[in-house]
């Protein structure tokens, strides 16, 4: 039946085509100008705090919000994930009060925020270790940062080159909107230096932490990384050494706090300008002893006093 209808309409399909082409020409002439955008909506009521961003932080942010709402029944906090980039973009577009981020804001993002009329303010709320994970049957126990860099840039392509079985290495990473991805690129692949090294194009970009843990659990060829709070018992954590001479250290709250585990980073919350009212009270509570007491229960590392 569908084809009958389509058959009568064929010249119309062409007509529609021409129309769209015409529209295309108009649209080329009419490109959006900078400053074309509508002025931003007024900030939300203080009693509801919108909190969006990093998937690494989302469980912790939820735990904080639940605890805080339990203590302050008049405050509503809504927490969603999506990635650090998502949260920061939302803050820049003024649709959230607090953006969670597992990386620092890029200069480009700060500039956009200033153009939108506010100065983003950074608050360090916890610390996190990035664990490197492999399949439990993988005999490799430790890797140096240099080896990790070589693996993720495809200079090392087989597990036997780092003391494992004769298997190809399958690279897993979070999507590039994840702060974990950016941190790993800058501090592991590029070893904290300015260079042009990139994730190999062969890297599988998984849309979620769950995607990484599923593949690592199933595939003995796989190597992945994720926030320590997301590592399940079915994945094997690899000890990491700064260089070939130093000790191989497993990630844990202790090794992050004493600074011996090399891939640890601060986690941030950003506000548009200095926080006011409800958001300020909430952030103070998070960084105070009550908030920080929640942190280790989810596998993160509390701020040091």
């Amino acid at each position, binding site marked *: *039946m*569908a*084809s*009958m209808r*389509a*058959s009568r*309409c*064929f010249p119309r*399909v*062409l007509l529609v*085509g021409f*129309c*769209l082409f015409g*529209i*295309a020409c108009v*649209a*080329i002439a*009419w*490109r*959006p100008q*900078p400053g074309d*955008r509508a002025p931003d909506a007024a900030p939300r009521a203080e009693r509801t705090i919108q909190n969006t961003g990093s998937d690494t932080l989302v469980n912790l942010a939820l735990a904080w919000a639940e605890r805080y709402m339990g203590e302050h029944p008049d405050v509503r906090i809504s927490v969603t994930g*999506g*990635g650090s*980039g*998502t949260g*920061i*973009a939302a803050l*820049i*577009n003024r649709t959230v009060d607090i953006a969670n981020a597992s990386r620092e804001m890029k200069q*480009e*993002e700060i500039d*956009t925020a200033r153009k939108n009329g506010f100065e983003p303010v950074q608050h360090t709320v916890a610390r996190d270790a990035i664990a490197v994970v492999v399949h439990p049957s993988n005999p490799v126990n430790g890797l140096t940062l240099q080896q990790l860099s070589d693996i993720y840039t495809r200079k090392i392509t087989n597990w036997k080159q780092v003391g494992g079985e004769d*298997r*190809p*290495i*399958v690279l897993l990473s979070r*999507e*590039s*909107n994840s702060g974990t991805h*950016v941190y790993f690129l800058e501090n592991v692949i590029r070893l904290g230096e300015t260079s042009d090294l*990139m*994730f190999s*194009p*062969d*890297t*599988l*970009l*998984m*849309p979620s932490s769950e*995607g990484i843990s*599923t*593949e690592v659990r*199933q*595939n003995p*060829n*796989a190597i992945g990384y994720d926030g320590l709070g997301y590592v399940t018992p079915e994945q094997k954590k690899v000890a990491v050494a700064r260089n070939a001479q130093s000790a191989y250290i497993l990630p844990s709250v202790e090794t992050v706090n004493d600074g011996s585990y090399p891939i640890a980073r601060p986690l941030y919350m950003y506000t548009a300008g200095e926080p006011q009212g409800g958001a300020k009270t909430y952030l103070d509570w998070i960084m105070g002893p009550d908030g920080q007491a929640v942190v280790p229960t989810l596998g993160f590392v509390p701020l040091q006093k």
Partner: protein
Amino acid sequence: MAAISEPIARARPRWGEFAVETLVRIGGFSTIGFVVLIFLFLLREGLPTFFKVPLGNLFGTHWYPTYEFYGILPLVLGSVLVTVTAIILALPLGVATAVFIREMAPNWAREILKPMIEVLAGIPSVVLGFFGMTLLAPAIRQGLGVPTGLTAFTGALLLAYMALPTIISVAEDALDAVPKSYRDAGLAMGATQWQTIWRVVVPAARSGILTAVMLGLGRAIGETMAVMMVTGNAARMPITLDSLFRPVRTMTATIAAEMGEVAQGSTHYSVLFGIGIILFLITFLINLAAASAIFQKRRRGGLR
């Protein structure tokens, strides 16, 4: 009295008719309006891509938007590879199923099969994606001995499955339209049932089957969720021989995965909409090709 009230009585239903007619007309035209508006929005947001990004970069082979590599070639080829493989897998199966339902199945089997196929079309793609990620991918890795089960082929299998209902129901319509006299003539010439189906009925319905393929293709290339979950999303160029069994990144998965990240108005944002324009053009061309196949058939005076 009667002379006055009569025209009023007639006028009332006419007004109602007018109102309904207008509503239907507005409904019909608004569909066109929405398509035009969506297309306009897509162009407004996406066209700056072609001015902002140098073409050498845009049609390069390296996709890494965080560091301003906007090569869309691996994404386009990835989509093409997955979609074409899916159709190659789905076509024989879909046509065979349609032939079975239309020509061979006893009535009771047909009564069961047709609603089942409609149910097939209703399975949410995220469910299929999860199935693919947890069951299909490990099976493919072990069965084919490839480094990871998240490959273009895994995506193609799921897409084939999702395109099947479309292909089956449209192909079945096409077979349905072949006059009974063709079958009778075939059988009367001494052909077996199989020969009649294969040499007479299917060729007579081939333009309808072609439409089925085109519609299936359109369905497959736009699919996002399942593909994003099982193809691994590695933006490598699928040009080596083993590419089918290696990860790929499709256009749809790229848009879905990255759209949440971008700041409005940034280059990356425009490029994602630019990819949207390319997808739109591809599906439009596929629909055009489907329509023209039918149109030519009609002009020749054949069936459908």
